[in-house]
């Protein structure tokens, strides 16, 4: 029997209910991913959905979308007359037809098609030969005017910036006449200015009666934008309250279930430079993500943060440090040794610990086990092989220790790593990188897609590496992260790296403007 949630409407909120989830329960074997969750969303409301990875947000949204069928409970959505009608489970078409739209964190756009083609894609019969013309154009133009989402519709999506691609995604949802719009981590890839513009758009849309469910890890955004916040933890709803009167610390505690220790960053005296770049250029001239004449020192015992919108040259910088690219011009040194060719194995040998941007693509090999991924870089070291034969027992034993030490939640060292959550996968990468006590750590977007708990853990480890005397180069798009960790911050824009300035003397606004291409002096 589904448990009956309260159906009486809150007297102080006259806006009509658009979406109502009652007693949603979903079990996967012994795991209860959603335990009797009730969620009501009203027209014009912006509701934040908070929760750590594994709290049940994705499952809940998947049920709403018809990708999963709930074991118990019901989903109702307002029909055209505003009356709540049950939504048949397990049908994505039904969800779309009922007006539920979602913008995923990883966009679902056909990159070779134009914005216009992407928006109308799937809304017409496959048999029609030409894309719908005038009518669709007019409708999109009207939506753009109403929402303030301006974007060039006639260039291939691949040529648009991430922020512009996101606008196409939102327009795509609006074009399908959504009444409930779900935004999954929408600001993860945006500059602060782009995020502000998105927030303005969301407010405008909500003002016109759209119900918005906003999934985010960034608590200050949630507090600024949303009227109500729903917190999931371990599959149950632990809070459903107005944001008024809430603060970041309470929300974080609700999500994690325990107080989050304040990040401690003990003072550290930097030593000699470990990474040193002098007028270094990296990447072919035809490449957008390239570095031109960069100067940078990262000293032992300090964290230098690189801020910038992805694609402005930090990829080239990371490739250089990781050993995937060679400098085209200038002099790059690691620990006194001049870098010549592309040589990832050489970087491993030179005690450079590299945390790649994309742990699925570059950091791990999905079908290999946790233990095998742990020794991916060091398989030929004497502790891992003897006469070319893998020392399986020794590797397994050390992997077990690392699993303990880094608190990796997994079925064991022999489990395929792709079965792990993003946070646990990242812990394996961290264990691999940091166990070898590197002299230089490259942390490229080390917490992208991780929840608060895992993020805190990564930050703690990076600060510990700094304390041990490692030089840490932190490349991130998350300004909160950069300010929390970095001793000095440099901004990269269009291939040019600004001087690294003392983080204490910088503020988020200034860095945000520099990321958009304004000089430090101009921004101040």
């Amino acid at each position, binding site marked *: 029997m589904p448990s009956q949630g309260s159906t009486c409407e809150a007297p102080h909120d006259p806006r009509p209910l658009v979406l109502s989830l009652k007693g949603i329960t979903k079990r996967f074997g012994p795991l209860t991913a959603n335990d009797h969750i009730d969620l009501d969303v009203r027209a014009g409301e912006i509701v934040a959905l908070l929760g750590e990875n594994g709290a049940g947000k994705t499952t809940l949204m998947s*049920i709403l979308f018809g990708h999963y*069928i*709930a*074991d118990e*409970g*019901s*989903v109702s959505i307002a029909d055209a007359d505003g009356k709540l009608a049950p939504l*048949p*489970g*397990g049908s994505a078409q039904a969800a779309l037809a009922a007006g539920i739209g979602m913008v995923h964190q990883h966009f679902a756009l056909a990159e070779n098609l134009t914005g216009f083609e992407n928006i109308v894609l799937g809304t017409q019969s496959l048999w029609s030969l030409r894309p719908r013309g005038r009518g669709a154009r007019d409708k999109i133009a009207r939506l753009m005017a109403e929402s303030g989402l301006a974007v060039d519709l006639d260039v291939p999506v691949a040529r648009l910036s991430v922020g512009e691609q996101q606008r196409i995604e939102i327009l795509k949802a609006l074009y399908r006449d959504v009444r409930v719009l779900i935004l999954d981590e929408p600001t993860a890839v945006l500059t602060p200015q782009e995020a502000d513009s998105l927030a303005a758009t969301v407010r405008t849309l909500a003002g016109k009666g759209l119900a918005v469910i906003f999934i985010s890890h960034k608590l200050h955004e949630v507090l600024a934008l949303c009227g109500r916040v729903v917190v999931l933890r371990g599959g149950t709803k632990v809070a459903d309250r107005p944001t008024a009167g809430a603060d970041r610390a309470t929300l974080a505690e609700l999500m994690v279930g325990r107080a989050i220790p304040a990040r401690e960053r003990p003072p550290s005296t930097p030593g000699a430079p470990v990474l040193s770049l002098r007028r270094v250029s990296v990447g072919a001239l035809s490449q957008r993500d390239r570095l031109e004449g960069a100067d940078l020192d990262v000293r032992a015992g300090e964290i230098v943060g690189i801020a910038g919108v992805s694609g402005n040259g930090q990829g080239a910088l990371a490739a250089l440090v*990781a*050993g*995937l690219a060679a400098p085209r011009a200038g002099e790059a040194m690691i620990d006194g040794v001049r870098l010549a060719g592309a*040589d*990832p*194995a*050489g*970087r*491993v040998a030179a005690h450079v610990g*590299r945390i*790649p941007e994309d742990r699925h*693509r*570059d*950091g*791990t*090999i*999905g*079908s*290999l086990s946790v233990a*095998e991924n742990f020794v*991916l*870089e060091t*398989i*030929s070291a004497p502790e*891992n*092989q003897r006469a*070319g*034969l*893998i020392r*399986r027992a020794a590797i397994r034993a050390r992997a077990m220790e690392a699993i303990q030490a880094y608190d990796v939640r997994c*079925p064991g060292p022999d*489990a*395929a790593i*792709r*079965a792990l959550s993003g946070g646990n996968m990242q812990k394996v990468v961290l264990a691999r990188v940091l166990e070898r006590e590197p002299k230089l750590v490259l942390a490229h977007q080390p917490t992208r897609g991780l929840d608060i708990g895992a993020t805190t853990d990564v930050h703690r480890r990076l600060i510990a590496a700094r304390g041990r005397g490692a030089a840490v180069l932190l490349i991130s798009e998350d300004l909160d992260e950069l300010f929390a960790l970095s001793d000095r911050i440099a901004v990269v824009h269009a291939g040019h790296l600004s001087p690294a300035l003392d983080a204490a003397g910088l503020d988020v606004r200034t860095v945000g403007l520099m990321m958009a291409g304004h000089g430090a002096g101009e921004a101040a």
Partner: protein
Amino acid sequence: MIRFVPRTRTPVWLSVAVSIGAGLAALALTAIPLALTGAPVFTAFALMAQGAAGNGFALAETLTRATPLIFTGLAAAVAFRAKLWNIGAEGQLYAGALATVALGAGLIEAPSYVLVPLVLIGAALAGAVLLLVPVLFKTRFGADEVVVTLLLNFIVLLFVQMMLEGPMKDEMALGWPQSAPVLDEATLPKLVSGWRLHGGLVLAILAAVLLHVFITRTVWGFRIRAVGENARAARYAGLPVGKAMALVGLLSGGLAGLAGASEVAGLKGYLTADLSPGFGYAGIVVATLANLSPLGVIPAALFVAGVFVGADSMSRAIGVSNYLADLVVAFALLSVLVGGLLTRFRIVFVRRGTA
């Protein structure tokens, strides 16, 4: 309604069960066209089984036919694991066969404990070098190895025909385009006197076991698996991607070359241009049926060989075309591909309208 839920790991028993189920499904599917032609379905299958393994002689025939298939199946399995799409095992087989007669038909005179290993090494090297070229083209210039290896098959076969009509032609063969026979010292021993079954089978099984150990237990095997599964991450981790691919090329080509040596030095005794009825291509089928597992290649090769030998025998007895064998193998391939879905996903049946 049916849903597919991804599995985090696949139990071994399930993989085995799916393979056996696929074999049975293939027979069931073959029964449909068989019945449509009015042939006696069960008699035909019974005769096939009898022809494949009904007596010692039939079984020996199946094992003889399976021998080159194990070699080419291993060649395909090791290459495909590293995502090196070697379609050229047929050509590498002929290159190995050519090396076998070049070395074993009188050029070198030595006792068999010297000549047999020499011939085998020569054949493996010939196949290996033939594949190494496309691999280097792939890693250096990005040339598509499917096209290069496939086209090399025709070049090698034409080269073999040229050699058999010219410099390697046996003057004693009454004008037939065939090579001189290999010396007795270069011939692989028969396993049972009077039967065609030869030492190549032992070598093939040994190769499967060694390849299994190599892939799972050695550093280079680890590198090959890593490169095959995610070359980007392997490169990021500093693994020698190019060398690993070159090694895969040497192994795969070498195994296919051994298939040629085994056929010439173990079975035929001399080289003709129709030495292989497509063993190189059938190796791809065998490797796929084996889910690219070196040990699985052995039963998969036995199955394919059994179907062909059994179908020949059945066709002689009741006149149903032995093309039936192609049908069974094709259906088996399709069944295994569908079965792969079962090993990667759990199938969950749900009643419509719950939730």
